[in-house]
């Protein structure tokens, strides 16, 4: 019996730790601490109540009804309130299915608090996230995802069978990574929208990521520029050559996680793009009638956005060096 009681207490100790970890919420570190306290405080009251009520059928069902109603109703206060409500309901329901007298119920509450506070201490004090490490790692992931998106786009130019759905998937993955970077910033009390590439500030690198993503989406809008146009093969080849330079730059940049990377030289990429522009000028699209007009506009759009991607990637590398104190070795692509 003593062993079983010990096992029960250990279980509640574990539940306290788990619920603190699983139902973490809040957009900043300070808020996360406050919400963890609220959750632990609430469950330490509802769990013994549920354990005592569990012995009485009507009483326990009334308590479940009340807790469920509150759990869903507080959703109007925001996502955090909703998560806390769900956490509280789940933990209380475990107690509803395990009736106990007043003494063991209160003991259950103490164990919950004990387990929860240990998890809290580990989470926020003993082993907290290193903001810079977490940000660098998520920044690197965002760059990698954008590199994959760019890879997909350049493959689409060569092969029209690359589907829009797969490009959309890559675009969504890249956006999710940028969003993750923003969420990390918020969780470290850094306002991502404070500052910009022009004015400096905390959001410096975040805006760099956003601008690169915008340029990639811009490129994706014109990516079918040479479909069914054999006379555009020369453009396609030029595009291919310039984009392979950019892909190599993306690859080099994804080494930023190790705090050093080979800084690529973008001059060959820009001169390749200039060659495509000159070819396009010489083709005199506007003199070819209305039918060609649209496709020439697409081609100009694609080249313009390709140049934007190269520029943004170059600028972002400089921002990353500044933001994360990276050491870039200067090499040609």
């Amino acid at each position: 019996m003593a062993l079983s009681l010990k096992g029960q207490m250990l279980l509640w100790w574990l539940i306290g730790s788990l619920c603190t970890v699983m139902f973490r919420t809040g957009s900043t570190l300070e808020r996360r601490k406050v919400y963890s306290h609220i959750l632990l405080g609430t469950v330490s009251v509802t769990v013994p109540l549920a354990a005592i009520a569990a012995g009485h059928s009507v009483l326990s069902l009334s308590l479940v009804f009340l807790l469920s109603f509150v759990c869903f109703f507080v959703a109007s206060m925001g996502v955090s309130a909703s998560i806390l409500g769900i956490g509280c309901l789940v933990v209380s329901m475990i107690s509803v299915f395990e009736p106990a007298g007043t003494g063991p119920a209160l003991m259950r509450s103490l164990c919950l608090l004990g387990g929860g506070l240990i998890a809290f201490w580990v989470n926020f004090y003993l082993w907290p996230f290193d903001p810079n490490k977490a940000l660098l790692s998520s920044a690197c992931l965002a760059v990698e995802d954008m590199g994959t998106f760019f890879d997909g786009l350049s493959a689409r130019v060569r092969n029209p069978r690359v589907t829009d759905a797969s490009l959309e998937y890559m675009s969504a993955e890249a956006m999710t990574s940028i969003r993750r970077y923003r969420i990390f910033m918020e969780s470290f009390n850094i306002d991502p929208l404070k500052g910009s590439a022009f004015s400096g500030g905390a959001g410096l690198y975040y805006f760099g990521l956003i601008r690169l993503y915008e340029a990639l989406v811009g490129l994706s809008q014109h990516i079918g520029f040479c479909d069914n146009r054999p006379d555009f093969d020369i453009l396609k080849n030029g595009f291919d050559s310039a984009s392979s330079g950019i892909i190599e730059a993306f690859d080099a940049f994804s080494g930023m996680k190790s705090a050093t990377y080979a800084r690529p030289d973008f001059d060959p990429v820009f001169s390749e793009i200039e060659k495509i522009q000159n070819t396009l000028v010489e083709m005199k699209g506007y003199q070819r009638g209305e039918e060609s007009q649209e496709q020439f506009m697409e081609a100009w759009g694609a080249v313009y956005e390709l140049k934007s991607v190269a520029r943004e990637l170059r600028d972002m590398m400089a921002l990353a060096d500044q933001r994360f104190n990276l050491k870039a070795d200067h090499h040609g692509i």
Partner: protein
Amino acid sequence: MASKSLSRLMGELRPGSPLFRHALRAAVAITAAVALVRHLDLSHALWVPITVLVVMRPSLGGTLNISWRRMAGTLTGVILGVALAYLRLPALAIGGLAFVMLFWMFYFKDRNYILFISFLTAPIVLILSSTFPQLWHSGAERLFDTVLGLGIGLAAAFLVWPNFARKNLRKALGDLVAAQHSHFRELRNAYFSDGPDMEALLSDRIRARTQLEAATEKCNDAAIEPGLVARQRQELMNLVDVFSRIHGTFTAMASIVGRSSGGVRGAIRPELEELMDTIDALYLQLEDYVRTGEETADAPEFKTCFNRFMVGVAQRRVQGAFDGFPLDSRNNASAFIRQIDRIGTGLVQAKNGLKSIRESR
């Protein structure tokens, strides 16, 4: 901030509030699940109420949407778990497999709900299979509890103040059109400004994105509810695609706006402003149509306006009017015009899609 949240909460505490009804519906379902579990004396008492908790969504369509995916995921996970259990692997191998599957569970958490549930169910079934007399018992129990939970959740969604997602669709789409229109205006102003406020533009785009996600969820939920014909369901999905594409165009436009300065954009400003007035009129017309179902505002035919604009620009180009401007500036204007064309075309498609949904009734 806390008092604001509290007053919002008190404002919802009335029988007519959708949130109040949703909370009541969910509370009834969860309480019924707990009562039934006790009555049947099931060994894993929590599984049923937790299934109910997870599938209860504010709208009937939302509940249907998540229910079928949970069912599919559980079924796949049970099959996988039971199949692995029949291999009678040593405890260490079972532990290793469970670890691998939990890794995939976390991987699919925000990516694919069916796979997330599959990789959650399979290790549970695999580990518990050793505690049952027959290897398939744990799988059967998990499946039974899930079916019971889904049944209770769906019954409550259908019977307790059912809330059809399509009832709120008009408002959600109207808000989306308004948010996109406002963002278009911001982009328009920023394009002609010499120092565009890119931070404000980004905040505004995030707002428009939030509206897009809310409307997408409503459309997805409405499309699965009973009462719509197949064509209407398809058109709803097409509508989501059109609005997502327009949002993508906004993202691309921001890149162009950030690099715009002087040059060609100034030389063709009157014509470009006129073209953008057409987009404004299209947005106003679309918003009216979405919210009221009536075409109250007049809007010119977009393609005619666009073609007229392009003919004008082409004539000036042939005359060499833009030759003095740098290539980058010309390309910037050209890319911007291309995006305007996309937005206009998208708005016309959205209007036609909405018309088709209404006419299919």
